[in-house]
C-alpha cells in the first residue's frame, strides 16, 4: 500500500457512528456493541423512535448519563449508566437471549477484527494474544436480522480487515450485512461486496487498494450520506 493512503484523512469514530445510526429505521429494535457502535445511540435520526436492547436484560432504555450520575442498576451492556425511559422493561439473561436468538432484533451493530467477502465475521479472538471472549457477540451475529459492522478499514499496520477469508477464529459465518468503515460503506451481497459510499476525497480505486477481495463498485457509488 502506498504511504499516501496511510496518511490520507479518514472518518473518525464519531462520524462512523453517525453514519451507522442512519440505518436505524422507525421502530427498529437495536443492539449496540461496545465501542464505536455504542456511540451511535447519540445520533438517532430526528423523529425516529428506536428501541435499544442490551443483553444484560433491558429494552427501551434512554441515553447514557453523565459520568458518575445515574443508577448503577440501570446500565447498558458496556456498564455505562443510562437514563430510564417510558416503555422500558427488564428481564433475565435467558429471556434476553430468547430475544436475540429468536430473531427479534432488527439491527445489531458491533466491531470486528476481520470480515470476509462472504460476510464471515471474526471479532472475538484477540489475534496477538490467542485468547478471546465470545460473550454475546456470537448469539447476536447468528440472531439479528441485520448485522452492521463498524470498524476501521485497516489494522494499525495498514493491513486490510476486509479479507477473502478470515484468518482469525470465526464469530459466525456469512452473517454480516453492511460494513461501515472509516473510508467506505460496503454492502455484503450474494454477488460479493458492493462499494456503496466513500469517505470524502477517497476514490473507489483507493478503497480497493486497501481491501483484499475485489469490490463491486455500485453504479450509484457516492460520498457517505449522513441524512
Amino acid at each position, binding site marked *: 500500500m502506498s504511504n499516501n493512503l496511510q496518511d490520507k*484523512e479518514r*472518518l473518525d469514530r*464519531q*462520524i462512523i*457512528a*453517525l453514519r451507522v445510526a442512519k440505518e436505524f429505521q422507525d421502530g427498529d429494535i437495536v443492539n449496540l456493541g461496545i465501542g464505536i457502535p455504542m456511540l451511535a445511540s*447519540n*445520533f438517532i435520526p*430526528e423523529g425516529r423512535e428506536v428501541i435499544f436492547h*442490551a*443483553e*444484560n*436484560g*433491558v429494552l427501551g432504555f434512554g441515553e447514557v448519563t*453523565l*459520568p*458518575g*450520575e445515574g*443508577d*448503577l*442498576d*440501570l*446500565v*447498558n*451492556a*458496556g*456498564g455505562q449508566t443510562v437514563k430510564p425511559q417510558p416503555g422500558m422493561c*427488564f*428481564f*433475565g*439473561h*435467558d429471556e*434476553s*437471549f430468547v430475544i*436475540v*436468538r429468536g430473531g427479534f432484533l432488527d439491527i445489531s451493530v458491533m466491531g470486528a477484527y476481520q470480515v470476509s467477502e462472504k460476510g464471515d465475521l471474526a471479532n472475538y479472538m*484477540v489475534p496477538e*494474544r490467542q*485468547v*478471546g*471472549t*465470545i*460473550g*454475546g457477540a*456470537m*448469539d447476536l451475529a*447468528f*440472531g439479528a436480522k441485520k448485522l452492521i459492522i463498524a470498524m476501521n478499514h485497516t489494522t494499525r499496520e495498514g493491513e486490510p480487515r476486509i479479507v477473502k477469508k478470515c484468518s482469525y*477464529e*470465526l*464469530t*459466525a*459465518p456469512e452473517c454480516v450485512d453492511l460494513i461501515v468503515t472509516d473510508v467506505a460503506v460496503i454492502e455484503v451481497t450474494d454477488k460479493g461486496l458492493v462499494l456503496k459510499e466513500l*469517505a*470524502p476525497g477517497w476514490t473507489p480505486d483507493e478503497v480497493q487498494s486497501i481491501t483484499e477481495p475485489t469490490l463491486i463498485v455500485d453504479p450509484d457509488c457516492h*460520498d*457517505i*450520506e*449522513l*441524512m
Partner: protein
Amino acid sequence: MPINKIVNSFDEAVADIEDGAVIMVGGFGTVVSIPSLLLEAIYRKGVRNLTTISNSTGFGSDVWKLQGAPFPEDMDILVRNERIKKSIVSAPVSALYVNNFEKLLRAGKVEIEMVPQGTLAERIRAAKAGLGGVYVPTGVGTVVEEGKEKKTIDGREYLLELPIKADFAMIHAHKGDRWGNLVYRGTSRTFNPTMAGAARITIAEVDQIVELGELDPECIVTPGVYVDRVVARPKVTDAHEEITDAQALESRKRTDQEIRATIERAEERGLRHE
C-alpha cells in the same frame, strides 16, 4: 412450622460448599449484579478446585472500590486466589488488558470451557427445566461446534447443547422473603434469575429481607420454589457520591460539544447531515 429459608450469616449460607464443588455465580459485568458477599464467604471458607459457571471472570475489587462500591468483590476473588480448577464462562478475558484469569490460563493453572452467552443461559435453563438438551443454532461453523452433535432441522443446522447443572447456585437479588421469593432491581437481573433453581442448592444474597406478602405477587421474578437459602447484606448508607452541579454541567457541556463537533466535522468534510 413456618417455612423459613432465611439464614443469618454468609458463612452459614456456604457452610456445606466443599472442595471440588460445581458452583454457579450470577451477575454480569458490573459488581452490583453479583453475589459479592457469598463469593467472599466461600473464599474465606478456603475451598479449592472449584468448577465455576459464570458470565465473566471479574474485574477485581480494586476497580469497584474506586467506584465506591460497598461490596466490591466479583469472580476475581476466586480467580486471583487460584480457587478455580475449571471455568465454564462466556467472557473470560478482556480485549483491553490482560486480566488475572488470562494469567492463570497462560500458566496452565485453569481449564476453560467458553460458551456463547445466550447458549450459556439456555443450557442453565435446560438444567432447571429438566430437559436433556437443546438444539441451538449459535456456533455452527465456528470453533463452538467442536465435539458437538450437529443436526439439520427444518433446513437449518443446530448444535446439541447439554444442560449445565451445579451443586450450588449463588445469586444476588434486591429483595427476598422467607419462602425465597425474589425481586431484582433494573438491569441487575442478568444471570441471577436464570441460575435460580439450576443447582441442587440455590443461595440468594439480597439487599433486603421483607415480610411474606410484601412482594407483589404480580411482580415476583423468581418463585421461592427455586431458592433454598436467603441471606441479607448488611445495610449500607447510600454511598452513592453526589455529583456537584458544576461537575454535571461541565460534563453535559462536553458531551453536547462532542456531538455538535461531530456534526460540524462531518459537514466540513462535505457530508450533509440533517
